[in-house]
């Protein structure tokens, strides 16, 4: 794994992503149902949310956070034992730059290893928090 020792408050690698209309639409194109939604249709977003823009799926932020976690624990660990749990606080939209940061907040011995918990934060280019949550992975 990328980090050989885990200590309290240890920072995980940050990840910064530029979100664009193109990336939002490409993410939406991955679905197997081709449905219009608040992510790919600005008019629908306006009708339902009152926004003037389509918003990025929260699952994009989940993916960004998972990348940070994967880089910290390594794919052999995170891709098989990892979790990400985010609460969304603000919309992410075209033109935003999202930075994921995090730090270890605790460990717990469990059967088969140690579960490491990481506080996760997503912030935009203005310093506004767009999501907050917790990630975990189990190390041997």
């Amino acid at each position, binding site marked *: 794994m990328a980090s050989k020792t885990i200590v309290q408050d240890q920072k995980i690698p940050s990840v910064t992503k530029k979100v664009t209309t193109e990336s939002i639409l490409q*993410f939406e194109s991955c679905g197997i149902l081709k449905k219009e939604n*608040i992510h790919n249709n600005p008019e629908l977003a306006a009708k339902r949310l009152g926004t003037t823009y389509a918003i990025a799926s929260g*699952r994009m932020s989940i993916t960004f956070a998972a990348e940070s976690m994967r880089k910290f624990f390594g*794919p052999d660990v995170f891709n*098989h034992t990892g979790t*990400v*749990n985010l609460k969304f606080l603000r919309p992410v939209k075209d033109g935003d730059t999202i930075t994921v940061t995090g730090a270890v907040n605790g460990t717990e011995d469990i059967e088969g290893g140690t579960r490491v918990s990481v506080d996760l934060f997503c912030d935009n280019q203005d310093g506004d928090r767009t999501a907050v949550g917790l990630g975990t992975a189990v190390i041997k």
Partner: protein
Amino acid sequence: MANSKLKIFDYDKAEIGEALGSYEYILTQEMLEAFRASVDDPEAPFPTLGVKHDATAFAMVYDDPIGTVNAGNQVEFFNPPIVGKKINVTGRIADKYLRRDKPYIVIEAIAIDEDGRMLEKLSTYQLKRPDELGKKWHPKP
């Protein structure tokens, strides 16, 4: 266009444990590449996140004219999916509750591949009053 086979979602009638759509699809190289490009991560191992298993399971059963906003997501990773393999998805309504008088449901989907490998468990906390978030984001003076 509305699908006449879909039920109109009624929050009051939704039940915890209620089955949503179950379906299968084959993960293609194109899907993997599109997902990786969209999140600017050439090693992103779970294109299943872009497929939105739980929301897809919901949309296969319900038409929701009010719409929804994701208040949160929780995902557990077990094994990255493999291109060319069939993925089987089972969805359900895992929870339903009011918070500050606002209606939420939790939809959940479990994905297993054709070899029986558990891939991912994805849950979404959906606020069924999306206009409430719009007001929060754009408060009127």
